[in-house]
């Protein structure tokens, strides 16, 4: 690990610089815009790889920290750093963006704006995954959102405006709840700093401060109730972003109507912002509240998984189907995270419980990464289909494997990864989540297994209807993947295999930080367990 390097700042702002360069390019020069965008994203990727190579997975704390005072009046710092919770997300963001840009060749109008906005989104994402102070973090949280609205609206398919607005308002309601809650937290503690807040929370000082504030304000509310209210506010912010059932209804529309690359980034990384919020903010800052709410949350996670997958079965629009699949897959992450906080086994002296929870947490982080790759690949390939045929209906195709065997094969791999086939990436994450969650929240985990089956049902139906059967003569000239498309697909597919077969390097990155979080949780979990007699 290294201190005093500005690599994170550089990483964050590299895409933004690219976006500015694009904005300054002459209007007609679309090729240059594409080139600059790809170049900037690749530079960012190289920076991320350099970051990764210097990252010390065994160290549980923050690395590459930069902290300087920023806004004195509200004690806001510029504070960035990465640890095991975020490094994979940074890598994922860096990696998906060049791929998404490669998949954007069909963008024909407002080319410069498109690439500039995509890069702006990337900066927002990097910011979210590296920021450690709420103020700073929230800027990027919202900054990623606005360009996305325009990407959906301007380059999306029919009805994109409605979808974009729905997406926006859902997220916005969450953000506002989040913001309000954090203002109250700041009022109580005087800090925006996630790390300080975590330490305060685990030491119980947060509750004390909250109580003091309430007393000072003369409010007739118990600190527990106040803490719970704040928890609910923050939870809402992330639950909508993730999304957790029943806050998910913005998702199918947004993912479906967005342009291909937009869907890729939305599902690949943007939805991870919410999960990351759980990891970075909700879990550490609200240990007692989270532990107390863990059972209902586990049910919600289960419903997200099962209902997402079951709803996907009913979809006739391919993109919508994969969108629902995204709901389902992100639900696994939440299941793993809830397992960490759940009180079951809290009173047991068995050290095994800690390991179970560590497994669940590692699994959740890995699942974020994996789903980012897999879902992005699926959306991208549906995008290829749509570019070629202009259609997305499941009944519109048939027998495409005959004319596009390579495409069919790669799609099959991605679909199998999504189904959770061993040897491919999703399996590892899902296995760890289930492994960790099983003993902790057995009924929900067991019911969640239905999700695995349902996933197989709709994805195989997809393959059956689109790629198998007699060739639909209408698409007899359907071209197989071109070089550019192969170039975009290959890294994702390669990663599916790499993570699926050798997950150790990835888990090693996250394990120390995950373990620390789990241990941090033990007192809260114990307290709640004693209270509920688990």
């Amino acid at each position: 690990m290294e201190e005093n390097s500005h690599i994170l700042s550089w990483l964050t702002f590299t895409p933004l610089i690219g976006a500015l360069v694009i904005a300054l390019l002459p209007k007609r020069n679309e090729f240059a815009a594409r080139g600059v965008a790809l170049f900037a994203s690749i530079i960012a990727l190289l920076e991320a790889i350099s970051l990764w190579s210097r990252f010390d997975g065994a160290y549980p704390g923050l690395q590459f920290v930069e902290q300087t005072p920023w806004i004195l009046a509200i004690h806001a710092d510029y504070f960035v750093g990465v640890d095991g919770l975020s490094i994979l997300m940074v890598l994922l963001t860096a990696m998906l963006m060049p791929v998404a840009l490669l998949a954007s060749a069909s963008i024909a109008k407002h080319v410069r704006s498109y690439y500039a906005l995509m890069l702006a989104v990337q900066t927002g994402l990097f910011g979210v995954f590296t920021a450690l102070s709420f103020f700073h973090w929230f800027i990027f949280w919202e900054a990623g959102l606005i360009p996305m609205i325009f990407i959906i609206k301007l380059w999306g398919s029919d009805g994109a405006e409605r979808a974009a607005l729905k997406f926006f308002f859902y997220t916005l309601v969450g953000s506002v709840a989040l913001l309000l809650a954090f203002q109250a937290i700041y009022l109580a503690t005087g800090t925006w700093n996630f790390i300080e807040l975590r330490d305060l929370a685990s030491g119980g000082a947060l509750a004390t401060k909250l109580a003091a504030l309430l007393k000072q304000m003369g409010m007739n509310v118990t600190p527990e109730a106040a803490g719970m209210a704040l928890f609910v506010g923050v939870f809402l912010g992330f639950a909508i972003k993730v999304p957790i059932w029943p806050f998910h209804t913005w998702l199918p529309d947004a993912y479906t109507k967005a342009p291909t690359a937009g869907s890729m980034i939305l599902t690949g990384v943007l939805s991870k912002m919410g999960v990351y919020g759980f990891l970075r903010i909700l879990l550490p800052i609200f240990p007692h509240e989270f532990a107390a709410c863990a059972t209902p949350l586990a049910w919600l996670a289960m419903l997200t998984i099962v209902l997402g997958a079951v709803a996907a079965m009913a979809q006739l629009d391919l993109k919508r189907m994969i969108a629902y699949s995204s709901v389902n897959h992100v639900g696994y992450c939440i299941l793993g995270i809830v397992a960490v906080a759940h009180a079951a086994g809290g009173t047991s002296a068995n050290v095994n419980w800690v390991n179970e929870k560590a497994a669940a947490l590692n699994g959740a982080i890995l699942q974020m990464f994996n789903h980012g790759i897999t879902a992005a690949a699926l959306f991208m390939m549906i995008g290829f289909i749509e570019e070629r045929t202009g259609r997305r209906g499941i009944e519109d195709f048939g027998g495409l494997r005959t004319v596009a065997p390579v495409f069919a094969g790669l799609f099959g791999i991605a679909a199998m990864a999504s189904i959770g086939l061993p040897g491919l990436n999703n399996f590892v994450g899902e296995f760890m989540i289930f492994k960790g969650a099983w003993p902790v929240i057995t009924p929900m985990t067991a019911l969640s297994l239905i999700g695995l089956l349902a996933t197989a049902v709709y994805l195989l139906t997809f393959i059956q209807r689109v790629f198998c059967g007699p060739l639909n003569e209408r698409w007899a000239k359907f071209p197989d993947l071109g070089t550019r498309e192969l170039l975009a697909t290959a890294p994702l597919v390669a990663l599916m295999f790499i993570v699926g077969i050798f997950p150790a390097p990835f888990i090693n990155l996250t394990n120390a930080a995950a373990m620390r979080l789990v241990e941090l949780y033990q007192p809260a979990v114990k307290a709640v367990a004693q209270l509920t007699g688990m």
Partner: protein
Amino acid sequence: MEPTTHIPWIASRLWLIPLLPFLAGGVSALLPRRYRKLSAGLAIGAIGISTLLSFCALAESILRGLQPHAGQQWSAMQTHEVWHWLTEFTWFSYGTTSLKMGFVLDPLTAAMVIMVSFVSMLIFIYSLGYMDRDKNFTRFFTFLSLFAGAMLGLVVANNLLLFFACWELVGLASYLLIGFWYHRPSAAAAAKKAFLVTKLGDIGFFAGLLWLYHATGTLQFYTPDHTGALEQATALAGLPGIMGLSLAGTIALLIFCGAVGKSGQWPLHVWLPDAMEGPTPVSALIHAATMVAAGVFLVARTYPLFQASPQVLTLVAWIGAFTAVMAATIAVAQNDIKRILAYSTVSQLGYMVMGLGVGGMAAAMFHLLMHGFFKALLFLGAGSVIHGCHNEQDVFKMGGVKKHMPLTFWTYIVGTLALAGIFPLAGFWSKDEVLTAAFNWGSGWFHKGPFVLGCIGVFLTAFYMWRQVCLVFLGEYRGDKAKAGHKHVGHEEAETQHETVPGAPHESPTVMTVPLIVLAIFSAFMGFSGLPEHANLIHHFLNPEHAPHNVNWFVIATASALAFAGLGLGHLLYGLKPLAADEPDPLKAKLGKLREFCRDKWYWDEIYEATVVRFANIASVVVDFGDRLLDGATVGLGLLARGLSLINDKFDERAINRCFDGGCGSVRLMGRCFAALQDGRVQSYLRLVAVAAALLAFWFFLK
């Protein structure tokens, strides 16, 4: 890779056996379609080396069994000791612990691995001929290699997770190969069905795996320090599980779900007959010899868990027995040559499962191994017939093939008799073992039930096999000699065949017949490795802790008698007077509705269609609708806010602005009143001024 000390080199390099086919598969996956020979060569080479290595493993194992041990008499047959050669490695670490994986070489592995690799190799070679003209020849070998790798990996795994991973991969390979002729909608549907139905069982398996992992803290079957998952089975038997079972029983039950799915046991057997949509070598390899037996192997592998829970074993036995008979009855009424064999496979798998359930693990494994040879033989024979008859699969359109394909005929006869359990072929010995185990299971009708069902199954097996032999090989050729191709094979199918010229059936090429011969030899003689009582090498090898059963003449006699009865009845109905073309099945007249019931597979598909599938569809539609409602509700909230905003706007317009305008209006009105005074006449002003001044002054003075 950390090999434990003092184990043979093959045991520490066991991973090579699955790895080679995997590599072959991986490389040929990247090859363009035109590299047909390279792909096939890679696949066959890899599986050949794997087979050699498997031989080494078997040899080492047998030698290990022969070695003297301290304080024990020199007797290979008497070592009551379970032994494993283990290697382990860490897949990844998490928390303070790590997930270890490993490979095990023990008798079970050794026996299974040689069967799998050997049969695979033969079928690979056979496929060279069978798939010769297929344009996706390269892909076929890719998938076959993938399958072989996964299957071998499953066999050598010392870890339930690794086992599960390979288990899923064989499922994938099965899916890919059933759907190999993807342009046929039926094939694509069958592939999906196979994957999903087995996946259903796998969900249970996965749950059991998770539970086992939590309960024991490891997924290794065996560990050097004897803390493996299976080695803790006794401890688990003391813990509570669900539904009144012990924890061990619960986990065993869940794991058995996986076996039910993969091994085509009732109620998840429905996929296996449909899987015959795949090319015949695939049916032979995956859906007869190896993969479907993996379920049985899984139970055998995790047998300590099952042993810890008698209730689960009982359930296993009954499911096996029921499946054996049910599938046999269905097989009786089928017309498709491959479907008959498929139901036969289901039935035989039922025997194996029954064997497991009644405590005869070694017997079940023995039957598994033997079944692997003779069922592969039968399928390949059937493939050869289909090949020879220009893709005809309906047995009523065959007949008299004996004349044209003598080699196929004779090998097929060997397979048939072996399957029927005719002395001294392999099937006789293995089925006898299973039935003996069932017979010895316990007393009372409940415990004798599986045995009785097994006996019925023996009769039915012999009957439907002989029916098939008669219909296919005897009599005259009933097919349309002038017509090439097959009615339910599309025109593209034609290119998978050698010749499309019309004409009589013909013998298959050497590359296909050699495997038939080899398999026939094995089917005929392998049974001697499992003679009853002390000569039961297999039993001693696989299950040294339990003594083999004594010879039970009652069982032998009953089974043999029933088998002969079945053959006789078959010959009576079909052999004596060969059917003419378009003549209906004699059974139709004799059994009537019952035959229809059997022909329609007991309506299982329809039942599932009406229940499970419909439920899933309805559920998905309901959930989707619920989502739309939810969406509508949120949109409604937005509209509500908008409505309130409109009200606000009206308020602004009607109340606030009107107040202002009204205020201004009243001021103006007042102004108008005063303006009336201002009539423009100077004198009026003057008057006003005067009066005002007067009043002012008056007021001033008064003050």
